[in-house]
C-alpha cells in the first residue's frame, strides 16, 4: 500500500486539478453566454439576406450568364472543403467530431474519384486532418489570439474562397462545421456554399408575392454584389456557431472533469484514512506485544 505521504500528495494534486477545471468551466459558461448572444444578434441580418436572395434567385434562375458564385463552374470534379473547428482544445470531442466528419466526407469523395482540397479554419481541425490529408491542404486560417471573431474575419475567408473560384481551382465548395443545436449538443454538418443552395422563395410570406419586387440596379447586378456578401454571412454564421459550440462543449467537458476529480478525491481520502488507521493499529499491536514481552 502506498505511503501516507504519497497519498496526501496525490490528494492535493487532484484537488488543484479540480480547482482548475472548475474555474475553466465557469469561464466557459460566461463566454458561452456571450457567444450565444452574438450568434443570436447576427441572425436578423442572415434572415433578411436570405429573403432577398430567395426572391433574386428566383428572378435570375435559368439565365445562361448567371454568376459563378450562384451556379458554380458546372463541373463536379474538384471539391473544396472548408473545415471550421476551434482554435483551442480541452473541449471534449468537439474538434475531433468535426475532424472525423470531414475525414469521412473526404474518403467518400475520393472513393468516388473526386479531387479534394481542404481549407482549414481553426487550428485544432487543421492539426487533426494534416496528419492524414496534409497533401490536400490549400490553406489554413486561424483566429487564435483574437478575442472576438468579427465579420471582417469571415469576409476574409470568403474573399479567399471567391478568389480560388475565379482562378478555377475548384468546382464545388462546401462548409463543414459543428452546428450549434443547444449547449450540450453540437452536430457536425455539411453545408454547400457553391453552387449556392438558394432558399426557396416563400410565396406565402406576409409581404405578398416575391415576384412583385422591383430591382435597382438590375437583378444580376445586385446579385453580383449580394452573393459574395452572402458567402461571408454564411461563413460568419459558422464561425459564430463554432465559437458558441466550442464553449458549450468545453463547459460540459470541464463539468465532467470536475465531477471525476471529486470522485477521485473521495476514493483517495477513503484510502488515506484506511491506511492511517492500519498504521495506528499496527503501532498499537507493536507496543502491546512489546509490553507483554517484558
Amino acid at each position, binding site marked *: 500500500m502506498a505511503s501516507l505521504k504519497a497519498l496526501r500528495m496525490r490528494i492535493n494534486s487532484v484537488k488543484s486539478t479540480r480547482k482548475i477545471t472548475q474555474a475553466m468551466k465557469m469561464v466557459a459558461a460566461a463566454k458561452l453566454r456571450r457567444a450565444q448572444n452574438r450568434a443570436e444578434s447576427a441572425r436578423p441580418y442572415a434572415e433578411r439576406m436570405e429573403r432577398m436572395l430567395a426572391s433574386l434567385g428566383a428572378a435570375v434562375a435559368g439565365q445562361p450568364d448567371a454568376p459563378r458564385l450562384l451556379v458554380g463552374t458546372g463541373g463536379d470534379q474538384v471539391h473544396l472543403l472548408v473545415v471550421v473547428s476551434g482554435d483551442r482544445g480541452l473541449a471534449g470531442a468537439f474538434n475531433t467530431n468535426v475532424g472525423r466528419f470531414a475525414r469521412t466526407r473526404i474518403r467518400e469523395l475520393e472513393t468516388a474519384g473526386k479531387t479534394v482540397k481542404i481549407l482549414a479554419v481553426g487550428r485544432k481541425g487543421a492539426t487533426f486532418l494534416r496528419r492524414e490529408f496534409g497533401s490536400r491542404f490549400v490553406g489554413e486560417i486561424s483566429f487564435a489570439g483574437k478575442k472576438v471573431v468579427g465579420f471582417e474575419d469571415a469576409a476574409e475567408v470568403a474573399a479567399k474562397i471567391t478568389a480560388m473560384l475565379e482562378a478555377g481551382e475548384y468546382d464545388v465548395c462546401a462548409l463543414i462545421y459543428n452546428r450549434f443545436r443547444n449547449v450540450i449538443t453540437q452536430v457536425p454538418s455539411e453545408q454547400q456554399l457553391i453552387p449556392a443552395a438558394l432558399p426557396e422563395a416563400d410565396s406565402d410570406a406576409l409581404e405578398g408575392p416575391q415576384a412583385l419586387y422591383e430591382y435597382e*440596379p438590375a437583378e444580376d447586378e*445586385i446579385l453580383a454584389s449580394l452573393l459574395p456578401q452572402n458567402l461571408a454571412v454564411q461563413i460568419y454564421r459558422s464561425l459564430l456557431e463554432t465559437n458558441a459550440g466550442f464553449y458549450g462543449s468545453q463547459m460540459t467537458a470541464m463539468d465532467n472533469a470536475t465531477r471525476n476529480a471529486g470522485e477521485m478525491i473521495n476514493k483517495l481520502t477513503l484510502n488515506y484514512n484506511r491506511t492511517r488507521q492500519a498504521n495506528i493499529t499496527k503501532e498499537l499491536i507493536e507496543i502491546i506485544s512489546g509490553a507483554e514481552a517484558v
Partner: protein
Amino acid sequence: MATFQLEFVSPEKLLLSRPVEMAVLPAAEGEMGVLPGHAPMIVALRGGVISVREGGQDTEKLFVAGGFAEVTPTRVTILAEEATPVAQLSKADAERRIADCEKALAEATDATPEKREAAMARLLSARAMLAAAQAA
C-alpha cells in the same frame, strides 16, 4: 402622419428598428426618398448618407459605406456593414480611407474589370464619406 418601420441591420447586430415618416436612401442609381406605402423594391446602396425624418423634421443622418435595402409598403430594411452618425465622422479618417482606396485602385490596373469596378466603388464611397464629414 403615417409611418413605416425602418430597420438597420449589420452582420453583427440589429442596429436600429423604429417607426419613421420618411427615409432618404443613397441608392446606386441616385437618391431615393421612401414614404410609407412605397412599392416593394430591392436596391443596392452606394456610399452615402441616409437621412431619417420623424415628426416633421430630419432627426438622424447616418453614413453607410454601401449595402442593400429591401423596401416594402410597411417596412424598409437596410443591410449595411457599418453605419456611423454623420456627426461622428472624422475628416482625417475619410481622407485616410480615400488614400487607401486610391492606392488599391492604382494597384488593381491589371486586375479583372470586376475587381477594378469594386475598387472604384470603394473609392467613391470613401469620397462620399469625406463629403459627408465636411458637410457635418
